[in-house]
């Protein structure tokens, strides 16, 4: 594996392998010495063109637990002139000797552009590109689901037959896209629930069923209910009339939460709009995996950094 740009390109075997390596990484977090010397001689760069304390910190912890040198490079895309930002920044990083670049950018495809440009030699890890993909988020979500279902017997297993329902602004969500491809690859059944304005117009080729009735979806039952963050600004582009109406029809209210089966996981990639797409009671319940998702994020990111960076250059295809 040379880069991690998307879950669309991950086959089942590679995906399960990443989840299994993450199990080993998770074990490190339970030890007294929460560090491995594995990437001691490597440099990882966090190249964040979009603000994101949560994801950036997660990658930072992951890199440090592997003893890598970490450089945080935050370039706010809007203030840098068009066209210069990505290329010039990338070449500066090459000069710094980066072995891996974790990139978050507001343009879909930016990670692929960076990886294929020839501007840098490092492994590229997509931490979120526009509305396209956020592969480590999907991996940590899959890891979380797998652990909740199979516990200590998770190693080597996929998500065959697991039902996952994703609710919210699918159209603008890279988390949704990455999850759709990965969960389907791992054998899960994926359903999308959203107002028609927030679903892509053409879902041909997507391995999902889609609809707009959240109550019907809950009545049919689901093993995991993944709530996506809603941005209030979408209201002004006429995607929905008011946040109140959105919440009434597609929010995980207390009332809907009560109708969930007791073993249905409630998931959210964060940050949450409590009271909008998810009620406080749902978010803080035992069914909520929100905090595990954060912890698992570090393990997944450690696994991916290890797999991308530890081996020799000639070993990469």
């Amino acid at each position, binding site marked *: 594996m040379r880069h991690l740009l998307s879950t*669309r390109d991950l086959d089942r075997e590679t995906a399960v392998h990443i989840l299994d390596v993450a199990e080993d990484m998770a074990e490190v977090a339970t030890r007294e010495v929460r560090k491995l010397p594995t990437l001691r001689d490597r440099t990882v760069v966090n190249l964040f063109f979009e603000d994101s304390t949560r994801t950036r910190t997660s990658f930072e912890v992951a890199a440090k637990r592997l003893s890598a040198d970490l450089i945080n490079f935050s370039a706010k895309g809007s203030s840098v002139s*068009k*066209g*210069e*930002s*990505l*290329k010039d920044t990338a070449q500066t990083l090459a000069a710094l000797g980066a072995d891996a670049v974790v990139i978050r*950018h*507001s*343009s*879909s*495809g*930016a990670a*692929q*552009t960076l990886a*294929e*440009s020839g501007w840098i030699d490092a492994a590229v890890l997509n931490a979120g*590109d*526009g*509305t*396209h*993909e956020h592969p480590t988020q999907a991996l940590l979500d899959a890891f979380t689901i797998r652990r909740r279902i199979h516990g200590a017997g998770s190693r080597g297993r996929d998500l065959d037959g697991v039902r996952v329902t994703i609710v919210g602004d699918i*159209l603008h969500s*890279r988390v949704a*896209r990455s999850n759709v491809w990965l969960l389907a690859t791992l054998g899960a059944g994926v359903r999308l629930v959203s107002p028609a304005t927030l679903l*892509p*117009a*053409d*879902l*041909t*080729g*997507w391995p999902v069923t889609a609809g707009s009735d959240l109550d019907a979806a809950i009545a049919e039952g689901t093993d995991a209910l993944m709530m996506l963050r809603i941005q209030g600004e979408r209201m002004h*582009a006429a995607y929905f009339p008011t946040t109140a109406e959105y919440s009434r029809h597609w929010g995980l209210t207390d009332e809907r939460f009560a109708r969930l089966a007791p073993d249905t996981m409630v998931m959210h990639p964060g940050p949450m709009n409590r009271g909008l797409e998810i009620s406080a009671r749902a978010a803080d319940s035992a069914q909520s995996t929100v905090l595990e998702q954060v912890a698992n994020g570090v393990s997944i990111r450690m696994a991916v950094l290890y797999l991308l960076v530890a081996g020799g250059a000639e070993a990469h295809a």
Partner: protein
Amino acid sequence: MSRNGIRVVGATLPDGRRTDLFVEDGRFVESLTDPASARHIDADGLQALPGLVDLHTHLREPGYEASETVLTGSRAAAIGGFTAVHAMANTSPVGDTAAVVEQVESLGRDHGYVTVRPIGAVTVGLAGERLSEIGGMATSRARVRVFSDDGFCVSDSLLMRRALEYVSTFGGVIAQHSQDPRLTVGAQMNEGALSAELGLAGWPAVAEESIIARDVLLADTVGARLHVCHLSTAGSVEVIRWAKARGIRVTAEVTPHHLLLTEELVRGYDPRFKVNPPLRRSEDVEALRTALADGTIDIVATDHAPHPVESKACAWDEASNGMVGLESALAVVQLAMVDTGLSGWADVARYLSETPARIGMLDGYDASFAAGSVAQFTLVDPTASRKFDVADLRGKGTNTPYAGRTLPGRVLATIHDGYPTVLDGELLDAEVVRKSAAGARA
């Protein structure tokens, strides 16, 4: 004194007849008065075409000379077999006054590679609010006949109606870039399953089709001519077909790239394939080819849009829209239409020369090769084949989508106003052409 004679031996005309061609004092003649001093061109196996006329080019000067100038754009045109180009008005300052269009026309005339016909902006500054001095531009030395806000759509219905009415006063035509701005905010590529997958904001076909539908009805109401730029969807073809069946005076153009390339190329997020209107589905490419062959689409126009390197070496949504096309147009048309059997060379002459000249009201292209006409023609080797490359470009822009692709055909000679601009497959020097142009005017 030299009569600038040219003798072309063994060329094949668009209708298939083999013949010799003679040029003297800038015009086709039955025979040369001074054969000994005439330039000799062996055209055995070559296809002769009337000089190609582009109704849609961006020469970028004044204001964006880093991307292209009238000189470099003219050279790119000549190597592509063109003898006339219509230069869009989205320059800086915008071509919305007699002064700017006269400057562009004069630069083209002095450089001499092609006849440059400036297009005038429909609205001041392309802002879509007030009509520009259409009359002033029409009666200027540039004699503007085509008006367009290309780059932008004249989206306000009232303004479009007034523009159609007003332009007909001067016998001109509005060339509309059909794109409803409200349906394409932030659009990056064709809207469809692929845009959903790639996470790029979609440019829905209806945003083009609905404007065309409105505009043909307006043109019908006020009895004006309408020209539709760069048709890109099967649905747009249907609207044009319907309008023509009703006798509405609408003409339509298609670009070479929309005859060949599809949205699948966007998968790699390579901005060389970013263009407005965007590359669409293979069903659209099929419909456009059929429409060009049957005359529903009247002409091919390049929409040659050069950009500096940094505007294309960046993330997709930061990149500029556009592809250069003058140098490759004929080759792509041959690949998409002639080599597939949809068109013959006579059709190519029609939609790449005679008809665009007619729409743009450009004299001298209605009786190609006839004795007495000003000599505008190009000689092409249709059997040539090459791997197209940035080295084959002659303009300043290097943003071609065809690099690495094998394209057929090669322009070996271009004659503009009776003097050569391209010989033996290569451009003549700027100084030589400038002198020839001055001589032809004398």
